[in-house]
């Protein structure tokens, strides 16, 4: 059953400290586990409901930008770095080679023009807490050659195929502030075909 507003946990940061309010866990009694054949006790259930408080740190800009319809990446601009100019998506706060802080770059237009499917998989399986409709079409997205990595995401309109051009879409209405605010659709998809809450 979904939690009511009173049952949810919220957190703000005030004076550099977390200020939680609301409910962060609900206590539920454990139950015995019996072997039906022998009638003997084997163990107990241990129910637990918890909410974690998680910081994005230097990646926060990436997750915040998704809700604004922007795809942010990062680039090493260190003159002395042997891989200078490499753009990272997934966003890396630091360059993996020189460990200098990367420059935040907006690659929304680049993604709209150059994103294509490197690999993909379609699966009807999911784990607990999944909110994606099934089957899930996982895609790995490559951009132009400046971007040296291959982003994992999901395709929500169209069928995946290696080399197919795709376009990013963003959950700009009621964002979740997670990677779930970024998805892809095949080239030529119209605004009306996008899932609820998403825009180009």
């Amino acid at each position, binding site marked *: 059953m979904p939690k009511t507003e009173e049952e949810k946990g919220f957190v703000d940061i005030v004076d550099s400290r977390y200020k939680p309010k609301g409910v962060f866990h609900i206590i539920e009694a454990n139950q015995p586990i019996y*072997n039906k054949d022998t009638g003997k006790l084997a163990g107990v259930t241990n129910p637990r409901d918890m909410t974690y408080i998680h910081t994005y740190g230097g990646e926060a800009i990436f997750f915040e930008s998704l809700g604004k319809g922007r795809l942010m990446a990062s680039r090493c601009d260190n003159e002395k770095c042997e891989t200078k100019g490499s753009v990272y998506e997934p966003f890396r706060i630091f360059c993996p080679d020189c460990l200098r802080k990367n420059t935040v770059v907006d690659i929304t237009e680049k993604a709209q023009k150059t994103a294509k499917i490197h690999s993909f998989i379609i699966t009807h399986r999911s784990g607990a807490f999944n909110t994606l409709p099934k089957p899930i079409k996982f895609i790995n997205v490559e951009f132009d050659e400046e971007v040296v990595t291959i982003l994992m995401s999901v395709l929500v309109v169209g069928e995946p195929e290696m080399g197919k051009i795709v376009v990013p879409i963003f959950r700009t209405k009621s964002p979740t502030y997670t990677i779930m605010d970024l998805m892809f659709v095949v080239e030529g998809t119209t605004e009306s075909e996008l899932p609820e809450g998403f825009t180009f």
Partner: protein
Amino acid sequence: MIKFSDKQLKIPKLMRPVYLATVGMSKFDRAFPETRIEELCIDALTAAADFVNMTPSELKKYIHTCYYGHFADHFGDQLLGEAVIHDRLGLDPLGNIGVKTGGATGGSAMWEAVKAVASGYSDCALALGWERMDEVPTDEGNHLISCAADKDWETPLGHIYTGYYAVMAQRYWKIFGKEEDSFRNTMAEVAVKNRGYARMNPHAQGPMKITVEDVINSPIVAYPLRVLDCCLMSVGSACGIVCDEKTAYEITDKPLRIYIAAGSHTLRVADRRDMKIPLLPNEKPNQYDDLGKRFPGGNRYPGFTGFLAARMSAYYAYNMSGVVDPTEDLDLVELHDAFTISDIQTYEDIGIRPYGEGRDYIESGDAYVINPHTKKPGKLPSNPCGGLIGCMHAVGATGLMQIAEIGYHIWNRWDEIHEPEEKWKAFGREKPKDWTNLQVKGAKRGLAISHAGVGSHVTCTILMDPNNLIKED
């Protein structure tokens, strides 16, 4: 393009020879609703003592430090689970440490134990691993496994690890498998072989007498992978004890030499950057210059089609032990067959076949105990225990089970572990009427690969009969 420095490519050196003195393992199963994990760990250590005709307390007197492989604390809902096991094994007050490297945890625990002995810190070290994945419902289990992916960038996408993994299979399937029915059949043959071998193993959880058609008609998990292409999810324990030369010969008159090395690569497949293929001793410079021509799209390395961590672990271990060509120099291998297709990818990563030609290892019959085409012994049998597909994948124990299995063959005692009627009965399993001894005849050298997830950690262990070393010390 990333490059490695000479210092990073240094061949690892053990300060003194290390020997595997004994090994043991428990029964493996999907669930043990009435057995605590320490009961299975005690079974494994007791089996190791039995194997060298000692009581557990006699064997324990040799142990100086302990390296425990247990991956997923959140499955067992117990932090410091290593301390629980250590206490139940009665090994206090010895120093011990927990090792966690995903699917490679068992191999990594052994990596640590070997280094402890090689350095002189310990003369005898225990590597023992276990896993229990049956204490949550399957969908929550899938979520817990998906926590081994990046929690911000991957896990929220379906909470299903297979999805993050199978994209690599898809890419390999299309580029190197060329989506051919014949390649699909070869993948299926891996599953048929390993499940068939598991039938001869009383410890194994997934024995099946199946055909290529059965695999191809099994339900799709994530195309091209089907249910019978995938490994098991298991509970169980396995261990190995390593020593310096003097101590090893006090425990047994037939210890085996052990070499082990490790490699790594990005947790997220997404972060893999392009690089030159690091070469193994049996490969030539420029050998892969035309790889992208022969397999369009196959020019990016490791891209999604190779496991750099496996390649690096083999690079270090082969050079350390003197192996030049694994097919010529070794007698059998235990590979991490998490999926049929990743098994084939690994043949290439560790140089059993060149990149792009992994399928030939199965198709030639070399990977079988008895080559199905020639009816003669296969050149380099792989996974006669059934592997992860047929025997088990109790994560922290898997790599140690594989090392144990290689050991049984080189010790020429495979039948002793897998044949006894009493063991089949005690495990509540029916011994097949056509039970066959899979002992690889005359085995002197073998290899085990322990591999984590999308390839974040891999260890390569090489065992040799001490009278059949390749490289002088």
